[in-house]
């Protein structure tokens, strides 16, 4: 079903889902949404499965016309969203009629915004995912960023249920200068004690040299005990690698499948949305926790979200 016509595509708008897992043994990057929480919660708000495909809009300058009546929501960190020129709430499902125009512009803070449509964006699956991988020129719409004139289709929407805003305490705890929790390693032993003091003690400023592949950080340089190089191995979403010159680089959605630099720490999955939404020029601080605490944070959050949507769909709220 034709659902949306793009009128202005802004700096970078792509189709993304929960990622292309399962082909990393063939060198295929995971890709997928930068802010997984915003994608998954936005999908749930319009009755989709959490990993359905949506539009990921970087910064702003986006405008599109609805071609049919459809429920939609916009999630992310503080973008300015308008329907026919009137401001609408984030993290809240709305119903658009054919001809309505939605515009999304950068707010003061966040970077990545998600426009989720009931049913989910219908583009072909490539290697099990609808995510766009720009360098490989596949996935999404013809393997490329969206441009004015593109028309997107949706799958038939699921059964309807009461439309509710997502409570504040279930949204990611975005902040202008967030504290980001990490688990040290996988190569913690490669760094000097002074490196940990610096890494966990000083703020790091997000560099403009950041994109879907990774985020460059400016701050104290981190010293290795011996070498910055390791035998190449797989790399996780949120792995913080430190090459020889000592500045940390956080690997994100479009990271290559393998890397040959030491990694001092890995960002907690629940804190990744806070990190990726931090704009260049703003700073982050890192705090070390152990794996048990990281796991507990993930499970607690997953449980609270499951419970909210279960009650929403099956009554009780």
């Amino acid at each position, binding site marked *: 079903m034709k659902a949306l016509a793009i009128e202005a595509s802004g700096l970078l708008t792509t189709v993304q889902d929960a990622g292309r*897992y*399962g*082909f*990393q*043994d*063939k*060198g*295929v*990057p*995971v890709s997928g949404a930068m802010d997984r929480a915003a994608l998954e919660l936005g999908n749930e708000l319009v009755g989709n499965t959490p990993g359905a495909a949506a539009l990921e809009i970087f910064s702003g300058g986006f405008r599109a016309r609805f071609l049919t009546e459809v429920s939609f929501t916009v999630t992310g960190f503080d973008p300015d969203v308008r329907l026919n020129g009137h401001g609408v709430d984030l993290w809240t499902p709305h119903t658009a009629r054919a001809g309505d125009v939605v515009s999304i512009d950068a707010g003061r803070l966040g970077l990545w915004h998600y426009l989720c449509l009931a049913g989910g964006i219908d583009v072909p699956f*490539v*290697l099990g995912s609808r995510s766009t991988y720009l*360098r*490989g*020129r*596949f996935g999404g719409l013809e393997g490329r960023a969206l441009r004015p004139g593109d028309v997107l289709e949706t799958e038939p929407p699921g059964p309807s249920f009461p439309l509710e805003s997502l409570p504040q305490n279930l949204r990611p705890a975005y902040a202008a200068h967030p504290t980001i929790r*990490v*688990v*040290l*390693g*996988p*190569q*913690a*032993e490669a760094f000097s004690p002074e490196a*940990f003091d610096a890494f966990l003690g000083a703020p790091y400023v997000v560099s403009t040299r950041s994109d879907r592949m990774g985020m460059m950080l400016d701050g104290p340089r981190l010293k290795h*005990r011996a070498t910055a190089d390791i*035998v*190449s*191995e*797989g*790399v*996780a*979403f*949120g*792995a913080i690698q430190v090459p020889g010159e000592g500045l940390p680089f956080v690997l994100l959605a479009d990271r*290559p*499948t*393998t890397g040959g630099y030491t*990694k001092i720490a*890995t*960002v*907690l*999955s629940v804190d990744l949305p806070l990190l990726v939404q931090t704009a260049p020029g703003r700073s982050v601080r890192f*705090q*070390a*926790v*152990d*794996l048990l605490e*990281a*796991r507990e*944070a*993930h*499970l607690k959050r*997953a449980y609270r979200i499951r419970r909210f949507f279960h009650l929403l769909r099956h009554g009780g709220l």
Partner: protein
Amino acid sequence: MEEQTRIPFSGPPPHGRADFPRFRICGDTALSVELGEGIDPAVNRRVHALYRTLKRRALPGILSLNPTYRSLFLQYDPTACSFERLMTVVEQALCGLEDSSKGSGPVLDVPVCYGDEFGPDLAEVAAFHGLTQEEVIQRHTAPVYHVYMIGFTPGFPYLGGLDPALYTPRKAVPRSKVPAGSVGIAEQQTGIYPIESPGGWQLIGRTPLKLFDLHRDPPFLVEAGMGVRFHAISREDYESLSH
């Protein structure tokens, strides 16, 4: 914030005895299992055997398995399986690991047109080693290479077994665009760029084979654990094979 009384390290103490398997914590959604040190075909074969065993079992919660030189990288969903459960599963799989001492799997023959604009660094590589271009080609086409892993871009094979006389450092300044099909050398490795990408390897030739093609089933020609052999072809053969 409370005093950090212990730094939650992963991996061994710096001077500890190497003990395998070594489990490295990669945050709360990934785990790396190291089976040995350095680049070693025997260790790599064990990694591939472990990969095949776990892939066959299709365990719930495991999102992807990626065999690399000396380790297996697992990405998982922490709501569906725990780190401790994964360690147990890996330990069990290692106990019953199939004999991995046998040679490599199937061998893929890769035609390469060496030199000129297809191999813009062939002359430099030859000069670096005091060889003729013909000698470089002979030495490069002699071995059956072992595919240690696929990484970097879709379908990019890291090949081991290069003639030590051809070990060459990477380009001082990487190219921003390396054409698809380029065959290169970096230190003790040789490899093939399946898609156009940036790259710092010394380019000595180009193959008309498409290592990665989404319009073909299967899309990938090489897998980790396979063998690869190069043979030299002429410009005319290259042109006719590209169509």
